[in-house]
Protein backbone atom coordinates (compact mmCIF):
# COMPACT_ATOMS: atom_id res chain seq x y z
CA UNK A 1 0.00 0.00 0.00
CA UNK A 2 1.40 3.38 -0.94
CA UNK A 3 0.74 6.44 1.16
CA UNK A 4 0.47 10.00 -0.07
CA UNK A 5 2.31 12.82 1.64
CA UNK A 6 -1.09 14.27 2.58
CA UNK A 7 -2.03 11.07 4.50
CA UNK A 8 1.26 11.17 6.38
CA UNK A 9 0.88 14.91 7.07
CA UNK A 10 -2.61 14.35 8.48
CA UNK A 11 -1.41 11.52 10.72
CA UNK A 12 1.50 13.64 11.96
CA UNK A 13 -0.78 16.61 12.64
CA UNK A 14 -3.12 14.42 14.68
CA UNK A 15 -0.30 13.05 16.82
CA UNK A 16 1.11 16.57 17.24
CA UNK A 17 -2.26 17.88 18.34
CA UNK A 18 -2.73 15.04 20.83
CA UNK A 19 0.71 15.69 22.29
CA UNK A 20 0.17 19.47 22.52
CA UNK A 21 -3.14 18.94 24.31
CA UNK A 22 -1.66 16.48 26.78
CA UNK A 23 1.22 18.86 27.48
CA UNK A 24 -1.19 21.77 28.03
CA UNK A 25 -3.14 19.55 30.43
CA UNK A 26 -0.02 19.06 32.52
CA UNK A 27 1.57 15.90 31.12
CA UNK A 28 5.37 15.85 31.38
CA UNK A 29 7.37 16.87 28.30
CA UNK A 30 8.49 13.91 26.22
CA UNK A 31 12.06 14.59 25.14
CA UNK A 32 12.52 11.50 22.98
CA UNK A 33 10.36 10.12 20.19
CA UNK A 34 7.96 7.35 21.00
CA UNK A 35 9.08 4.11 19.41
CA UNK A 36 5.65 3.47 17.89
CA UNK A 37 5.27 6.51 15.65
CA UNK A 38 3.06 5.18 12.86
CA UNK A 39 3.80 7.88 10.23
CA UNK A 40 7.37 6.49 10.24
CA UNK A 41 6.26 3.20 8.78
CA UNK A 42 9.41 1.21 9.52
CA UNK A 43 8.56 1.59 13.21
CA UNK A 44 5.39 -0.51 12.98
CA UNK A 45 6.93 -3.96 13.44
CA UNK A 46 10.05 -2.86 15.24
CA UNK A 47 8.90 -1.42 18.55
CA UNK A 48 8.15 -3.37 21.72
CA UNK A 49 4.52 -3.44 22.83
CA UNK A 50 5.27 -4.35 26.43
CA UNK A 51 6.34 -1.58 28.78
CA UNK A 52 10.05 -1.22 29.47
CA UNK A 53 11.20 -2.77 32.73
CA UNK A 54 12.78 -0.23 35.09
CA UNK A 55 16.28 -0.74 36.44
CA UNK A 56 16.87 1.72 39.25
CA UNK A 57 20.21 3.40 39.60
CA UNK A 58 20.57 2.62 43.28
CA UNK A 59 22.81 -0.38 42.73
CA UNK A 60 26.38 0.79 42.02
CA UNK A 61 27.19 -2.60 40.54
CA UNK A 62 24.81 -2.00 37.65
CA UNK A 63 27.07 -2.61 34.66
CA UNK A 64 25.38 0.05 32.52
CA UNK A 65 26.40 2.82 34.94
CA UNK A 66 29.86 2.50 33.48
CA UNK A 67 30.59 2.47 29.78
CA UNK A 68 33.14 2.00 27.05
CA UNK A 69 36.13 4.31 26.92
CA UNK A 70 38.06 5.46 23.88
CA UNK A 71 41.44 7.05 23.43
CA UNK A 72 43.80 8.65 20.93
CA UNK A 73 44.49 5.26 19.35
CA UNK A 74 40.81 5.05 18.30
CA UNK A 75 40.93 8.06 15.97
CA UNK A 76 43.37 9.36 13.39
CA UNK A 77 44.32 12.98 12.88
CA UNK A 78 42.15 13.50 9.81
CA UNK A 79 39.08 11.67 11.12
CA UNK A 80 37.30 14.92 11.99
CA UNK A 81 37.92 16.50 8.59
CA UNK A 82 35.74 14.77 6.02
CA UNK A 83 37.06 17.01 3.25
CA UNK A 84 40.64 15.69 3.30
CA UNK A 85 40.05 11.94 3.37
CA UNK A 86 40.58 11.49 -0.37
CA UNK A 87 42.88 12.83 -3.05
CA UNK A 88 40.86 15.93 -3.86
CA UNK A 89 38.28 18.43 -2.73
CA UNK A 90 34.73 17.14 -2.37
CA UNK A 91 31.92 19.04 -4.10
CA UNK A 92 29.49 21.12 -2.09
CA UNK A 93 29.32 23.80 0.55
CA UNK A 94 32.12 23.35 3.09
CA UNK A 95 30.93 23.65 6.71
CA UNK A 96 32.39 23.52 10.20
CA UNK A 97 30.19 21.89 12.83
CA UNK A 98 31.22 22.44 16.42
CA UNK A 99 29.65 22.20 19.84
CA UNK A 100 29.88 20.75 23.31
CA UNK A 101 28.95 17.37 24.69
CA UNK A 102 27.27 17.81 28.07
CA UNK A 103 25.34 15.81 30.61
CA UNK A 104 22.03 16.97 32.04
CA UNK A 105 23.74 18.98 34.73
CA UNK A 106 25.66 20.86 32.04
CA UNK A 107 28.96 19.19 32.88
CA UNK A 108 31.29 18.54 29.95
CA UNK A 109 31.74 14.94 28.84
CA UNK A 110 35.46 14.76 28.13
CA UNK A 111 37.49 12.44 25.97
CA UNK A 112 34.46 10.59 24.60
CA UNK A 113 33.87 9.34 21.11
CA UNK A 114 31.62 11.19 18.65
CA UNK A 115 31.03 9.55 15.28
CA UNK A 116 29.11 11.02 12.37
CA UNK A 117 27.96 9.94 8.95
CA UNK A 118 26.05 11.69 6.20
CA UNK A 119 25.07 11.90 2.55
CA UNK A 120 27.19 13.93 0.15
CA UNK A 121 26.21 17.34 -1.25
CA UNK A 122 23.81 15.77 -3.72
CA UNK A 123 22.04 13.63 -1.13
CA UNK A 124 23.72 10.30 -1.85
CA UNK A 125 25.25 7.99 0.75
CA UNK A 126 28.43 6.07 -0.01
CA UNK A 127 26.43 2.94 0.75
CA UNK A 128 25.73 0.16 -1.75
CA UNK A 129 22.05 -0.01 -0.89
CA UNK A 130 21.44 3.70 -1.40
CA UNK A 131 19.66 3.69 -4.76
CA UNK A 132 19.06 7.43 -5.01
CA UNK A 133 20.19 8.28 -8.55
CA UNK A 134 22.31 11.25 -7.51
CA UNK A 135 26.05 11.26 -8.16
CA UNK A 136 28.56 9.74 -5.79
CA UNK A 137 31.52 11.97 -5.04
CA UNK A 138 34.89 10.20 -5.37
CA UNK A 139 36.32 12.70 -2.89
CA UNK A 140 33.73 12.22 -0.19
CA UNK A 141 32.80 9.21 1.93
CA UNK A 142 30.91 11.01 4.68
CA UNK A 143 32.09 9.25 7.84
CA UNK A 144 34.04 10.93 10.64
CA UNK A 145 35.15 10.50 14.26
CA UNK A 146 36.59 12.60 17.01
CA UNK A 147 37.17 12.66 20.76
CA UNK A 148 35.77 15.53 22.83
CA UNK A 149 38.36 17.81 24.42
CA UNK A 150 38.66 18.91 28.06
CA UNK A 151 35.69 21.27 27.70
CA UNK A 152 33.64 18.55 26.03
CA UNK A 153 34.03 20.34 22.69
CA UNK A 154 34.09 18.67 19.29
CA UNK A 155 34.67 20.06 15.80
CA UNK A 156 34.13 18.56 12.36
CA UNK A 157 34.90 19.97 8.94
CA UNK A 158 32.60 18.53 6.29
CA UNK A 159 30.22 19.29 3.43
CA UNK A 160 26.62 20.32 3.85
CA UNK A 161 24.64 17.19 2.96
CA UNK A 162 21.83 17.29 0.41
CA UNK A 163 18.21 16.29 1.01
CA UNK A 164 17.35 12.85 -0.32
CA UNK A 165 14.25 10.82 -1.20
CA UNK A 166 13.20 7.69 0.69
CA UNK A 167 10.38 5.21 0.44
CA UNK A 168 8.29 5.89 3.53
CA UNK A 169 5.53 7.25 1.30
CA UNK A 170 5.15 8.76 -2.17
CA UNK A 171 7.42 11.77 -2.65
CA UNK A 172 9.04 11.41 0.77
CA UNK A 173 12.19 13.52 1.21
CA UNK A 174 14.46 13.73 4.22
CA UNK A 175 15.59 17.24 5.21
CA UNK A 176 19.38 17.63 5.11
CA UNK A 177 20.84 16.02 8.22
CA UNK A 178 23.99 14.58 9.73
CA UNK A 179 23.79 11.36 11.77
CA UNK A 180 25.60 11.46 15.12
CA UNK A 181 26.61 8.64 17.45
CA UNK A 182 27.72 9.68 20.93
CA UNK A 183 28.97 7.97 24.08
CA UNK A 184 28.77 9.36 27.61
CA UNK A 185 30.46 8.25 30.80
CA UNK A 186 27.80 5.57 31.31
CA UNK A 187 26.32 3.13 28.78
CA UNK A 188 22.89 4.41 29.88
CA UNK A 189 23.76 7.76 28.24
CA UNK A 190 24.30 6.26 24.80
CA UNK A 191 22.79 8.40 22.05
CA UNK A 192 22.30 8.09 18.31
CA UNK A 193 20.60 11.05 16.70
CA UNK A 194 20.55 13.45 13.74
CA UNK A 195 21.45 17.11 13.40
CA UNK A 196 19.46 19.36 11.06
CA UNK A 197 20.11 22.74 9.44
CA UNK A 198 18.04 25.86 10.22
CA UNK A 199 14.91 26.78 8.26
CA UNK A 200 14.68 23.66 6.12
CA UNK A 201 11.33 23.71 4.25
CA UNK A 202 11.14 19.91 4.49
CA UNK A 203 10.76 19.91 8.30
CA UNK A 204 6.93 19.82 8.35
CA UNK A 205 6.85 16.83 5.99
CA UNK A 206 9.42 14.60 7.72
CA UNK A 207 8.05 11.84 9.97
CA UNK A 208 11.46 11.18 11.53
CA UNK A 209 11.94 14.74 12.78
CA UNK A 210 8.25 15.02 13.72
CA UNK A 211 8.39 11.79 15.72
CA UNK A 212 9.82 14.14 18.35
CA UNK A 213 6.45 15.66 19.20
CA UNK A 214 7.77 18.11 21.77
CA UNK A 215 8.41 21.33 19.87
CA UNK A 216 11.22 22.54 22.10
CA UNK A 217 12.92 19.14 21.92
CA UNK A 218 12.63 19.19 18.14
CA UNK A 219 14.37 22.56 18.03
CA UNK A 220 17.28 21.08 19.94
CA UNK A 221 18.00 18.92 16.89
CA UNK A 222 18.56 21.97 14.69
CA UNK A 223 22.02 23.53 14.59
CA UNK A 224 22.49 27.30 14.80
CA UNK A 225 24.37 29.26 12.15
CA UNK A 226 27.25 31.04 13.89
CA UNK A 227 29.13 33.59 11.90
CA UNK A 228 32.01 33.51 14.42
CA UNK A 229 32.48 29.83 13.56
CA UNK A 230 32.62 30.55 9.84
CA UNK A 231 36.20 30.52 8.59
CA UNK A 232 37.15 33.26 6.11
CA UNK A 233 37.20 32.05 2.53
CA UNK A 234 36.83 28.45 3.74
CA UNK A 235 33.65 27.28 5.50
CA UNK A 236 30.33 28.26 7.08
CA UNK A 237 30.03 27.60 10.80
CA UNK A 238 27.26 25.77 12.65
CA UNK A 239 27.03 25.23 16.38
CA UNK A 240 25.27 22.26 17.88
CA UNK A 241 25.50 21.22 21.53
CA UNK A 242 24.56 17.67 22.50
CA UNK A 243 23.08 16.90 25.92
CA UNK A 244 23.08 13.28 27.02
CA UNK A 245 20.12 11.83 28.88
CA UNK A 246 20.04 8.88 31.22
CA UNK A 247 21.65 8.30 34.59
CA UNK A 248 25.38 8.90 34.68
CA UNK A 249 27.95 7.28 36.90
CA UNK A 250 28.78 9.16 40.09
CA UNK A 251 30.55 12.32 39.06
CA UNK A 252 34.17 12.49 40.15
CA UNK A 253 35.37 16.09 40.21
CA UNK A 254 38.39 16.46 37.93
CA UNK A 255 37.80 12.91 36.78
CA UNK A 256 37.12 11.91 33.21
Amino acid sequence: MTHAQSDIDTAMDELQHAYDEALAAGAPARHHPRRDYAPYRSSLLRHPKRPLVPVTGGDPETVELSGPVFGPTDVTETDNDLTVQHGGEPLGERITVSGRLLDRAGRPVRGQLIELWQANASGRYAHLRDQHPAPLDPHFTGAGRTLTDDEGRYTFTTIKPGAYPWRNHTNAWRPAHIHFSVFGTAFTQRLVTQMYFPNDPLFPHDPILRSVTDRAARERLVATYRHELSRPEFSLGYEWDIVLDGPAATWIEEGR
Partner: protein
Amino acid sequence: MAETFLPTPSHTVGPFYGYALPFPEGEQIAPKGHPDTIVLHGYVLDGHGDPVPDALLEFWQAAPDGSLTGAPGSLRRDPVTGGHLGRNGTDFTGFGRVATDADGHYALHTLQPGNAGPPYISVCVFARGLLHHLFTRAYLADGADPLLDSVERERRATLLARPGENRSYRFDIRLQGEGETVFLEFT
Protein backbone atom coordinates in the same frame (compact mmCIF):
# COMPACT_ATOMS: atom_id res chain seq x y z
CA MET B 1 22.38 17.20 40.92
CA ALA B 2 20.44 20.00 39.27
CA GLU B 3 19.11 19.01 35.87
CA THR B 4 18.97 22.30 34.05
CA PHE B 5 19.99 21.02 30.61
CA LEU B 6 17.38 19.32 28.49
CA PRO B 7 18.44 16.22 26.57
CA THR B 8 19.04 15.98 22.84
CA PRO B 9 16.31 13.71 21.44
CA SER B 10 17.20 10.32 20.03
CA HIS B 11 16.66 9.40 16.36
CA THR B 12 16.83 6.16 14.43
CA VAL B 13 20.22 4.95 13.21
CA GLY B 14 18.59 4.60 9.75
CA PRO B 15 19.57 2.12 7.06
CA PHE B 16 22.90 3.57 5.93
CA TYR B 17 25.18 3.44 8.98
CA GLY B 18 26.99 0.43 7.51
CA TYR B 19 29.99 2.25 6.10
CA ALA B 20 30.46 4.38 9.20
CA LEU B 21 29.77 2.55 12.47
CA PRO B 22 30.84 -1.10 12.14
CA PHE B 23 34.61 -1.58 12.46
CA PRO B 24 36.97 -4.52 11.91
CA GLU B 25 37.00 -6.91 14.90
CA GLY B 26 34.01 -5.13 16.42
CA GLU B 27 32.68 -8.60 17.32
CA GLN B 28 35.98 -9.76 18.88
CA ILE B 29 36.08 -8.50 22.45
CA ALA B 30 38.10 -11.55 23.55
CA PRO B 31 41.83 -11.25 22.89
CA LYS B 32 42.65 -13.20 19.74
CA GLY B 33 42.98 -16.93 20.35
CA HIS B 34 42.08 -16.70 24.04
CA PRO B 35 41.29 -20.25 25.23
CA ASP B 36 38.32 -19.10 27.34
CA THR B 37 36.55 -17.35 24.46
CA ILE B 38 32.78 -17.73 24.43
CA VAL B 39 30.38 -16.88 21.61
CA LEU B 40 27.13 -15.04 22.22
CA HIS B 41 24.96 -15.25 19.12
CA GLY B 42 21.40 -15.18 17.89
CA TYR B 43 18.85 -13.49 15.69
CA VAL B 44 17.11 -10.14 15.84
CA LEU B 45 13.44 -10.58 14.87
CA ASP B 46 10.59 -8.17 14.19
CA GLY B 47 6.90 -8.32 15.11
CA HIS B 48 6.22 -10.85 12.34
CA GLY B 49 9.09 -13.04 13.48
CA ASP B 50 11.06 -12.01 10.39
CA PRO B 51 14.80 -11.42 10.72
CA VAL B 52 15.99 -7.83 10.98
CA PRO B 53 18.97 -7.63 8.60
CA ASP B 54 19.91 -4.04 9.36
CA ALA B 55 20.13 -3.93 13.14
CA LEU B 56 23.25 -2.75 14.92
CA LEU B 57 24.03 -4.25 18.31
CA GLU B 58 26.41 -2.90 20.91
CA PHE B 59 27.70 -4.82 23.89
CA TRP B 60 29.20 -3.64 27.15
CA GLN B 61 30.29 -5.90 29.99
CA ALA B 62 32.56 -6.37 32.98
CA ALA B 63 36.00 -7.89 32.39
CA PRO B 64 36.52 -11.46 33.69
CA ASP B 65 38.02 -10.01 36.91
CA GLY B 66 34.86 -7.93 37.43
CA SER B 67 36.39 -4.58 36.55
CA LEU B 68 34.22 -2.05 34.74
CA THR B 69 36.88 0.42 33.70
CA GLY B 70 37.07 -0.84 30.11
CA ALA B 71 40.05 0.14 27.98
CA PRO B 72 40.56 2.21 24.86
CA GLY B 73 41.47 0.53 21.60
CA SER B 74 38.21 -1.05 20.38
CA LEU B 75 38.54 0.87 17.10
CA ARG B 76 42.35 1.07 16.99
CA ARG B 77 43.54 3.01 13.96
CA ASP B 78 46.71 3.08 11.93
CA PRO B 79 48.03 6.65 12.04
CA VAL B 80 50.03 6.05 8.85
CA THR B 81 47.38 4.65 6.51
CA GLY B 82 44.30 5.91 8.36
CA GLY B 83 42.94 2.36 8.24
CA HIS B 84 41.80 0.10 11.04
CA LEU B 85 44.43 -1.99 12.79
CA GLY B 86 42.02 -4.13 14.78
CA ARG B 87 42.37 -4.51 18.54
CA ASN B 88 45.85 -4.82 20.03
CA GLY B 89 45.37 -8.49 20.91
CA THR B 90 45.74 -8.22 24.67
CA ASP B 91 43.59 -5.44 26.16
CA PHE B 92 40.01 -6.25 27.13
CA THR B 93 37.98 -3.19 26.15
CA GLY B 94 34.61 -4.60 27.26
CA PHE B 95 32.94 -3.04 24.22
CA GLY B 96 31.72 -4.71 21.04
CA ARG B 97 29.68 -3.61 18.03
CA VAL B 98 28.12 -6.00 15.52
CA ALA B 99 25.72 -5.41 12.61
CA THR B 100 23.28 -8.24 11.93
CA ASP B 101 23.83 -10.08 8.65
CA ALA B 102 21.29 -10.72 5.87
CA ASP B 103 19.74 -13.49 8.04
CA GLY B 104 19.36 -11.13 10.99
CA HIS B 105 22.11 -13.05 12.80
CA TYR B 106 24.93 -11.70 14.96
CA ALA B 107 27.82 -13.34 16.82
CA LEU B 108 29.97 -11.81 19.54
CA HIS B 109 33.25 -13.41 20.70
CA THR B 110 34.09 -12.47 24.24
CA LEU B 111 35.07 -13.67 27.72
CA GLN B 112 32.81 -14.47 30.68
CA PRO B 113 31.90 -11.23 32.45
CA GLY B 114 32.95 -11.17 36.11
CA ASN B 115 30.21 -8.88 37.44
CA ALA B 116 28.64 -9.58 40.84
CA GLY B 117 25.69 -11.99 40.66
CA PRO B 118 24.76 -13.94 37.54
CA PRO B 119 27.06 -12.85 34.69
CA TYR B 120 25.47 -10.70 32.03
CA ILE B 121 26.36 -8.75 28.92
CA SER B 122 24.52 -5.47 28.39
CA VAL B 123 23.05 -5.09 24.90
CA CYS B 124 21.99 -1.92 23.10
CA VAL B 125 19.86 -2.38 19.97
CA PHE B 126 19.72 0.09 17.07
CA ALA B 127 17.83 -0.33 13.79
CA ARG B 128 16.07 1.43 11.00
CA GLY B 129 12.51 1.85 12.28
CA LEU B 130 13.65 2.05 15.89
CA LEU B 131 13.39 5.73 16.81
CA HIS B 132 15.08 5.25 20.17
CA HIS B 133 17.54 2.46 20.92
CA LEU B 134 16.59 -0.39 23.26
CA PHE B 135 18.58 -1.87 26.13
CA THR B 136 18.43 -5.46 27.25
CA ARG B 137 20.75 -7.94 28.98
CA ALA B 138 21.98 -11.37 27.96
CA TYR B 139 22.42 -13.36 31.18
CA LEU B 140 24.82 -16.27 30.77
CA ALA B 141 23.48 -18.01 33.89
CA ASP B 142 20.32 -17.86 35.96
CA GLY B 143 20.42 -16.85 39.61
CA ALA B 144 19.26 -14.33 42.16
CA ASP B 145 19.40 -10.90 40.54
CA PRO B 146 17.41 -7.68 41.11
CA LEU B 147 16.34 -7.42 37.45
CA LEU B 148 15.67 -11.11 36.80
CA ASP B 149 13.66 -11.30 40.00
CA SER B 150 11.59 -8.25 39.05
CA VAL B 151 10.18 -9.60 35.76
CA GLU B 152 7.23 -11.94 35.40
CA ARG B 153 8.11 -15.60 35.33
CA GLU B 154 7.25 -16.20 31.68
CA ARG B 155 9.30 -13.24 30.50
CA ARG B 156 12.42 -14.08 32.55
CA ALA B 157 13.54 -16.59 29.91
CA THR B 158 13.87 -13.80 27.32
CA LEU B 159 16.84 -12.47 29.31
CA LEU B 160 18.60 -15.84 29.60
CA ALA B 161 21.10 -16.89 26.93
CA ARG B 162 20.89 -20.68 26.30
CA PRO B 163 24.21 -22.53 26.52
CA GLY B 164 24.99 -24.53 23.37
CA GLU B 165 27.94 -26.40 21.90
CA ASN B 166 31.49 -25.09 21.67
CA ARG B 167 31.15 -22.55 24.48
CA SER B 168 28.34 -20.79 22.67
CA TYR B 169 25.26 -19.06 24.06
CA ARG B 170 22.14 -18.42 22.02
CA PHE B 171 20.41 -15.11 22.64
CA ASP B 172 17.63 -14.01 20.27
CA ILE B 173 16.14 -10.53 20.45
CA ARG B 174 12.44 -10.21 19.60
CA LEU B 175 11.54 -6.59 19.13
CA GLN B 176 7.79 -7.16 19.27
CA GLY B 177 5.07 -9.77 19.71
CA GLU B 178 5.20 -13.35 20.90
CA GLY B 179 8.11 -13.87 23.28
CA GLU B 180 8.98 -10.17 23.14
CA THR B 181 12.35 -9.56 24.78
CA VAL B 182 12.36 -7.68 28.08
CA PHE B 183 13.76 -4.21 27.34
CA LEU B 184 15.05 -1.95 30.05
CA GLU B 185 14.66 1.60 31.22
CA PHE B 186 17.36 3.05 33.46
CA THR B 187 16.07 5.55 35.97
